């Protein structure tokens, strides 16, 4: 069974083509672009909000994109249980849209960081991570200016209590502490999921580590997990 992906294109998205390429040419699944002015989306199993600088991120990352017509459709899609993954800017848009809790601050060193990092899988019983082992260390790069995830104390406790933390920044051996936190994110959080388990946001770019030629294939298994989950569904 083929799983159909939709990659949303906002003006300023710049990882849309990379996600499209991985899904079509590496994963060999059907995929279509969804223009941000679309008001209806149908026939898709999974929607990808790609990375980039939607609307230049001139006000706040993701702040303007969340008002794009397509976002109402994405919300409806998610409410019906459809799978949504937001990568980097896509994660920031999900936060602004309120589909995931929290907000993004500038990286603690105030610089854009493009770098290979290690992530630990904190939760593998999700639609997006079912092919990983728990505590598996993944090599997936980051590239962002605002990846410093923030949440007030109570909300953080709630997030942890609900087991919504999916990825944390870690050392190559899976150790988690401030030393291995590239951007200052609270509790080393790199990716989270909503309570219902169908909306994932992550700062690292799995589409950039989905082929051997790029130094790591770890990211591909997120897309493969989505396929596996949907086929079973």
């Amino acid at each position, binding site marked *: 069974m083929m799983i159909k992906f939709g990659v949303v294109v906002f*003006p*300023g998205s*710049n*990882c849309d*083509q*990379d996600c*499209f*390429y*991985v899904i*079509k*040419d590496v994963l060999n699944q059907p995929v279509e*672009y969804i223009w941000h002015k679309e008001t209806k989306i149908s026939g898709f199993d999974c929607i990808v909000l790609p*990375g*980039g*600088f939607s*609307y*230049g*991120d*001139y006000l706040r990352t993701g702040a303007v994109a969340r008002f794009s017509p397509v976002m109402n459709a994405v919300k409806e899609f998610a409410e019906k249980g459809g799978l949504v993954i937001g990568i980097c800017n896509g994660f920031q848009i999900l936060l602004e849209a309120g589909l995931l809790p929290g907000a993004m601050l500038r990286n603690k060193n105030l*610089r*854009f*960081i*493009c*770098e*290979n*990092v*290690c992530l630990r899988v904190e939760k593998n019983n999700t639609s997006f991570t079912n092919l990983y082992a728990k505590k598996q260390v993944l*090599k997936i*790069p980051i*590239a962002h*200016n605002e990846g410093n995830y923030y949440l007030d104390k109570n909300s953080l406790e709630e997030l942890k209590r609900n087991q919504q933390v999916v990825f944390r920044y*870690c*050392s*190559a*051996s899976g150790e988690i502490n401030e*030393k*291995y936190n*590239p951007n200052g994110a609270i509790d080393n959080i790199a990716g989270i999921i909503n309570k219902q388990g169908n909306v994932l946001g992550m700062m690292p*770019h799995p*589409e*950039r580590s*989905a*082929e051997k*030629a*790029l130094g*790591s294939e770890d990211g591909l298994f997120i897309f493969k997990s989505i396929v596996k989950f949907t086929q079973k569904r």
Partner: protein
Amino acid sequence: MIKPEIYHSLGLRDEDYQKILKILKREPTITELAMFSVEWSEHCSYSRSKKYLRFLPREGKYKVLVGEDAGGIVLDDLAVIFKMESHNHPSQIEPKQGAATGVGGIIRDIFTTGARPIALMDSLRFGPLTDSYNKFLLHGVVDGIQFYGNCLGVPTVGGEIYFESCYSGNCLVNVMSIGIAKRNKLARARATGVGNSILYVGASTGRDGIGGCSVLASQEFCNEVITSNEEKRPSVQIGDPFTEKCLIEATLEAINTGDIVGIKDMGAGGLTCATSEMAAAGGSGIEIELQNVPRREKGMESWEVMISESQERMLACVKKGKEKEIQNIFAKWDLNAVVIGKVTADRMVRVKDRGKVVAQIPADALANPPVYDLASKKPDYLDEIKKLDLDKISLPKNFNQVLLKLLSSPNIASKEWVYRQYDHMVQTNTVVLPGSDAAVLRLKENGRGTHLGGGTHLKGIAVTTDCNSRYCYLNPYRGAEIAVAEAMRNLVCVGAEPAGITDCLNFANPDKPDRYWQFKECIRGITDVCQFFQIPVVSGNVSFYNENPQDAIYPTPTIGMVGILPDINQRCNQYFKNEGDEIILLGICKEELGGSEYLKEIHSLVKGEIPELDLELEKSVQKTTLEVINQGLVNSAHDCSEGGLAVALAECCISRRSWSTDNREKKIGCKIDNLPSALKTDALLFGETQSRIVLSAKKSAVNKIKSIAQKNNTPLRIIGKTGGERLIIETDKRKVIDLPLDKLENSWRQD
């Protein structure tokens, strides 16, 4: 009657003005005068360099494409388009916006050919960081590049940064971009077909960079300007990468329809340059109405609209009847696309403002400014500066200290803290990341993401920029030759066959004969070495007047170069991979210290004859390296450049990139115990003899490598073995270098 003071202040000389009178057979209007002044400025017209640029070779192994604004080479059914351009003066005044708009401009030159930009490189030069303004410039420029390039989604995959005191007061910001297109989908920058429409596309016009072209870019900075940058600031343009990103997508979509006859960036010289050059290139005329030009500011005069350098704008010639379809594509991306005129048969650029003709100039005459040859004379400093008695240079007692100092010197130290701020992975093509001799990109199909031909296309390209300007100062001819040879060597080290050059020629005031001599000598060097290797120069840029009252910059002919990898799976990079590999040095070591980083950093001398360049030897070393890499016989390859053999070896040990900030993947040390012993130790370790490449290979591969070297007549020497956690170098059974890798790495990596 136009007074000489007026046209002088616009940068036009008396003889230029006489020519204008002859062309028009009357006095120019103010608008016409402004148009001549921008189009005939050195910045737009190359009038002072054109005569010599013609000598640069245009042919090589790969078919060359030379367009109006950028050039490239043909690779199968793809065109690889590339160009490098300077944005020096704007960056000196406002580093962030100067560098950002430099990136924007070069990117537009690439995508207006129909090619999708796939990479950026930056070659940057500043004065010493001990001066806080230079530090401000460095950080501002890096910030501008990351601000613009990251937003566009075009990876910045490498470049170079050098520091020399001559760049204080005149930093260099040279940006290169590479794009790919289907060969049959390329667009030209010309207007043809009488009655076709002229479409203004992109951002609105304001008073940005009014006079920036002739006043800002073609005047050397005088004292007054340096102390009052505040006043200059308004003529710097502000970059808008978001609009540019939308322009890229919309333009490529529009060109793909086949209804675009020609398209051109409105960069330096704005509408003037775009109308006159598109008309001249197409053998046509263009008539425009200024009232239709979208504007951001009120009350702009017609001459201001004609020479404004507002960013993120383009001019397109569209087939009659297809305007609406093209406008719809731009409208989808929320971009202006307004018909402002049409193509005419009379070969005139005619500008109307509310129906009244304000300028009427023959396009050819405007677009083909007078070409000068200027007086040149060998500079006086050269004879003095070449005197260097090696015997008088005291031998350091502790070579470990020297090596650590060199590794931490700004010219050699790791630039990871810079390229970490650039998104160098977006588009997922970067298969050799920044930090090796050259970056390698695999080639996916232009456009929306499928592999070429449906299968896995294994070809790739490698890119590098190079210039040791200190060499060019000490010996302009050979320095330029070395810049090309080293760029080639860098490409060869990652497994790419050198294929084409774009040059960015940064020089001081050409009206001074000794500076012009430097320019001519460098061109001669590039020409000769390119002819020898049959490497074409496909595009380029000249930036003159890079000087301030204290100093002229070193002659800096930056070479941007593209090479072809037959198979990206055979790519190579510079760091050691395994314990127990044999370390092989191709080439020979000579006693050459002139112009070296060692002399400058350790002995505070910028002196001496620079290293020799034996072209036959260079060719043979490169041929052997390429063959052994392509046959998969070696595990690493690294060129010896600044800091010589010792620095190259240290980099082989410590430059491996890691996945975690702390738990770095294992670094591999080495022991070197078979070096030629007849040389002075400092020359052996830190001399910068050309045509040398350090390889590492499994023992079992060594015989094959030897026989390839023998066949190509390449000098080869096995100098040691990889392994351990130290860098050890012995000569005459004496350890001259013995350092733990951590210590080397700490000196080399800086934040």
